């Protein structure tokens, strides 16, 4: 019997210990979850900071090279040899040789298009050949097999002293830019025939580049850069649309993906980016867009087929640069001095170079997120087609050559603007309301107000946003004068109050508590009604019937229906309960003995509130506003629905904005996992987290101080 009790006791104690562990573990779970939250945001952001890497992958020897390209999967490098064959060099050194066909050796020159799908060759008898070159992917079970297909498109005689500048192609047509001592010409080759457009170049064409469509060409001469437009097969002579003198002697040129920017390399190592912009007096001008770090003579510039990076090949080195972020991503290690050819892989996951002896060098590339750097995220950047550096958020565009513009500044400014307007509206209302409830209102009123404010906090933000956008915004636009008139409410109530205060004290005493509240309510109702009645007359008399037109015509102020005023009101709705509750708590925590002492010294309730309660609670009131700010900054649905979501930098109350939270909500579901946009959006979330974390810390510290200060008094 006694043994049973002891066993029972032991078991109870064991369970007790076990449960204590479990419960402590449960408490830890919350901590772990919070840490996990931060950790994951950081983990997903960190790759943005990772520096690009390049690693050498091996050397494969081969014959005398003229041109080279690589397949999408980086399996084989295709090298054009002077003897007139294609050599497909595998990673293991295995070589497959395909004859070029009707081409007469020894070849003078050969050039692949940027996408590696077209090949131009000038053969031993001075004929220009255009060929299409594909490697079709087939599958043998799990194994990928590339089937090469070489097809001659057309050929024509070009004569001596010509050199190949650029090739592009599409389907059964190819366009070849050919330079000579006295100019340049564009040769259109297709199965239907061959035609030539001569370009009116001033001097010998040193380097040149073609847009992907072949309709635009850039020619660099020893002294300048010229841009030709609308190069259709029917045009026999084309004058430059724009030209500009260069401050250096160019040696290489290439146009970047998107056909907007041309990159020039110089004899003395300069690397510059140029773009065409509309000129002030009509027409076009060539504009210096960027300058990169110099070095040795530039042998060639090879653009990426994926984004705005490009390879600059110098005499003994090669590096990969990025246009948007204006930085050198990585230099290729162990670059063979005297390499004749160097290019980027099609997926930008590698690079290769071929030496004069025909050795193929390869590199693996991990560029990570070249378009995201501190500068592109937080500083003005000069994007393609922009006159000056600007901060722009435009994460996706229609075409493959689109340059993502990922400046977080417009989003941060939009977020702060929304929060600012929300606080302008809600902080006075909530603080004053809390003061009234805490200090002047009858006790019964407090019991009604608190649940109502709680309900206000519970209203889903999607409901507030929906009403703000579809109900309030059209109403405000229609009745802008009434909305502006609301601003007069405070001074008019105050004016009436001042008048009332000269009334006999006997009357004033009767007007207190609920009656006072009813009188104020009556005043608000009268003021509102008179505004509504007056509005149409004011409209006609002063504003010509439409305030929005008047604003634009007279003041040049543009008006968006979904603007900062509407957002401020709607966000204010969400923020008021937070500020109100915390402020009311802070006011309640002021020990009643302080108020009693002050009133014993002859202070009126208002004087006690003004000189004792408010100063004592002021840190708490400050914390309330801070937490309200935190809520306003992080609110998503209201701003998503009521702002119009235009990433503007305007601080005008009549314009919309785009906030960080709304951008995350809209763009993250569409952002590919692990991509730059995905990581930038997670960085945005991390910023939001840090901001609210800081606010919470400040508020917690303030609360702690208040507890310390009044802890003794309250006891």
């Amino acid at each position: 019997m006694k043994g049973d009790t002891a066993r029972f006791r032991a078991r109870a104690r064991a369970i007790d210990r076990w449960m204590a562990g479990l419960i402590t573990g449960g408490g830890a779970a919350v901590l772990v979850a919070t840490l996990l939250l931060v950790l994951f945001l950081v983990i997903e952001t960190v790759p943005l900071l990772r520096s690009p890497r390049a690693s050498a992958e091996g050397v494969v020897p081969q014959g005398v090279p003229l041109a080279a390209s690589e397949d999408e999967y980086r399996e084989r490098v295709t090298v054009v040899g002077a003897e007139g064959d294609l050599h497909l060099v595998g990673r293991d050194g295995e070589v497959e040789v395909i004859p070029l066909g009707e081409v007469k050796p020894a070849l003078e020159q050969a050039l692949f298009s940027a996408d590696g799908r077209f090949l131009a060759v000038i053969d031993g008898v001075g004929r220009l050949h255009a060929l299409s070159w594909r490697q079709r992917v087939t599958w043998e079970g799990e194994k990928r097999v590339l089937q090469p297909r070489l097809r001659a498109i057309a050929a024509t005689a070009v004569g001596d002293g010509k050199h190949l500048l650029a090739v592009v192609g599409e389907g059964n047509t190819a366009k070849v830019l050919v330079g000579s001592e006295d100019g340049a010409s564009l040769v259109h080759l297709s199965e239907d025939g061959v035609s030539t457009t001569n370009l009116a170049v001033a001097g010998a064409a040193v380097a040149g580049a073609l847009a992907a469509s072949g309709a635009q060409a850039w020619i660099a001469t020893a002294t300048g850069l010229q841009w030709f437009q609308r190069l259709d097969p029917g045009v026999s002579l084309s004058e430059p649309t724009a030209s500009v003198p260069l401050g250096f002697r160019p040696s290489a040129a290439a146009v970047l993906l998107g056909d907007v920017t041309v990159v020039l390399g110089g004899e003395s190592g300069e690397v510059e980016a140029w773009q065409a912009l509309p000129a002030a007096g009509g027409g076009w001008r060539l504009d210096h867009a960027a300058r990169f770090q110099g070095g040795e003579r530039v042998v060639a510039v090879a653009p990426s087929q994926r984004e705005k990076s490009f390879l600059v090949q110098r005499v003994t080195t090669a590096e990969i640069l990025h246009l948007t972020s204006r930085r050198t991503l990585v230099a290729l290690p162990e670059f063979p001095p005297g390499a004749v050819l160097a290019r980027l892989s099609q997926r930008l996951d590698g690079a290769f170079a071929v030496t004069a002896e025909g050795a193929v060098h390869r590199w693996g590339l991990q560029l990570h997120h070249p378009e995201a750097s501190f500068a592109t995220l937080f500083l003005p950047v000069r994007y393609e087609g922009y006159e000056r550096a600007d901060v722009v958020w435009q994460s996706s565009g229609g075409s493959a050559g689109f340059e993502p513009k990922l400046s977080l500044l417009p989003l941060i400014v939009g977020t702060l603007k929304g929060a600012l307007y929300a606080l302008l509206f809600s902080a006075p209302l909530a603080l004053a309301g809390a003061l009234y409830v805490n200090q002047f209102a009858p006790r019964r009123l407090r019991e009604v107000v608190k649940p109502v404010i709680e309900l206000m906090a519970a209203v889903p933000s999607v409901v507030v946003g929906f009403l703000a956008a579809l109900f309030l915004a059209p109403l405000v636009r229609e009745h802008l004068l009434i909305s502006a008139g609301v601003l007069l409410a405070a001074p008019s109530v105050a004016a009436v109050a001042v008048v009332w205060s000269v009334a006999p004290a006997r009357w004033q005493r009767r007007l207190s508590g609920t009656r006072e509240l009813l009188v104020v309510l009556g005043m608000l109702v009268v003021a509102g009604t008179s505004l509504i009645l007056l509005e149409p007359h004011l409209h006609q008399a002063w504003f010509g019937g439409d305030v929005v037109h008047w604003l634009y015509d007279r003041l040049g102020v543009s008006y968006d229906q979904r603007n900062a005023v509407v957002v401020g009101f709607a966000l204010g709705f969400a923020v008021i309960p937070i500020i109100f509750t915390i402020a009311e708590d802070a006011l309640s925590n002021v020990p009643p003995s302080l108020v009693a002492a002050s009133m014993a010294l002859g202070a009126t309730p208002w004087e006690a509130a003004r000189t004792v309660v408010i100063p004592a609670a002021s840190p708490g009131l400050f914390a309330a506003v801070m937490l309200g700010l935190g809520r306003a900054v992080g609110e998503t649905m209201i701003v998503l629905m009521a702002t119009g979501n235009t990433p503007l930098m305007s601080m005008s109350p009549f314009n919309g904005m785009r906030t960080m939270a709304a951008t995350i909500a809209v763009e993250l579901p569409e952002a590919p996992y692990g991509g730059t946009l995905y990581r930038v959006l997670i960085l945005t979330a991390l910023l939001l987290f840090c901001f609210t974390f800081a606010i919470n810390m400040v508020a917690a510290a303030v609360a702690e101080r208040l507890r310390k200060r009044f802890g003794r008094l309250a006891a």
Partner: protein
Amino acid sequence: MMRAPWLKEGIAARWLAAAALLISLAMVVGLLAVVSAVAGKAFWPRPLVLLRLADGRVLLGEVWTREADPNHPGHERWRLKTGNRDLEGQDFVWVPKAAVVAREVPAGAWLVERREYGNFYGFASELHTPEGIVSATDERFGDALAKALQRGRELVEEERHLLDRLAALHAPVVKYGARAEGAKSERRRQRALAALERARGHEEENAPPLLARLAEVRHQAEEVTLVMTAAGGQEMTVPAAGVVRAVPVNALGLGARVGLYLSRWWEFLFAEPREANTEGGIFPALFGTALMVFLMTFAVVPLGVITAVYLNEYASGGMFTRAVRLALANLAGVPSIVFGVFGLAFFVYGVGGTIDRLLFADSLPTPTFGTGGILWASLTLALLTVPVVVVATEEGLQSVPDATRDGARALGATRWQTLRHVVLPYAAPGVLTGTILAVARAAGEVAPLMLTGVVKLAPALPLDGVPPYLHLERKFMHLGFHIYDVGFQSPNVEAAKPMVYATTLVLLALVVVLNLLAIALRARLRRRLSRSAV
């Protein structure tokens, strides 16, 4: 120094403070009033108005709004819902009031709510059934129409039932086919192929009679049609199976109108959406919201209660306790969208992606758990609402007098026994308050869901008759997201407005009722707290 009386009494300041409070309260009341008013009349039958215009056009429809004409200042224009989208290509027409020559409310005008192409407004001509033709002037027309519509509903129901059964027969074929395709080993492939063979055999055996019946049902559905005439004179044949309801609105008495109003609300709450969510009901959204918060409570209540118990009963007040409190304060202050981002990065891509690689490797790259779903959404919201449960539970625990605890311990109970048998039952109202508040908060939260699995239109409910019955990986619909999607992403926002307001009212009612419940519960708890303190 004597101050001016108005400064001393601070009347202006007091009045301004009172005004601020009143304005804040008016905002809440105003919001509830606007939503209730607009949503309340959203389904009330509007009269069908026949307008003859100066240019000879005749329009029949509901006057939707009246407003000042921006093109002709001083004049009014009406937005008329004319329906008949398949005839006109649009639902709404602007009519300048000045262009209206004559306006009447014809008793013979009918409103036909259809499953496709929205409403049809016109005049009934005749009813075609296999038994013969009934003219609209015939007194048997009403009964015949009611019977035809009933028949149409039955046929639609049967068609859907048949399609469901056919889909259920075909589903294993797709499943095993994919499994055989993606099999990593030959043995698995053979097993999948055998199962595929069996599923095919089963389908071939059972499908033909269903298909035959389906053809018959569809043929029968085509036989019963309602012939209508639009206001412009065009004739329109509407199959009875495509009609939700047909009513001569203008001829209805008050009772019939109320009946129509209520039946529309019923349809709204319990039917599937139609026409890109702009018509029909919100049942899947209602169901998705309910199931999501239900799943959430399984995660948030244990976690919240244990944390509260730890903080209130076990914590020693050291660094660790302060860290837990700090973590809670931060969870409460972090924007909800950040939780969504965490849910996407951690639950969906992290945990979900791992589950897919381990358990559903055969169906990759199509994700199973590695994409948003109801499980991830409810776990994300559980994390978001933990502070709510903790705060309320702590309040409940604090309301338990220490004397009670000491009494239990004095009788020899261990700490856990005291907690289990004395403290927790006493604190139960606090736990319940916290749960209700968490549910209310989660029901209204939208932003995190947009990243973790909510969709505008889910093909199937996450709970159905197909094993394993509860499909945690499925995407779901949600009331709040429904409001955002239909109100902002819909191609026909104007036509969808009544639906959005009604959805808003439903969501608001849900949240308000839950909160009032919590407030009442907490008030009881506080009364006890003040008693026990004495």
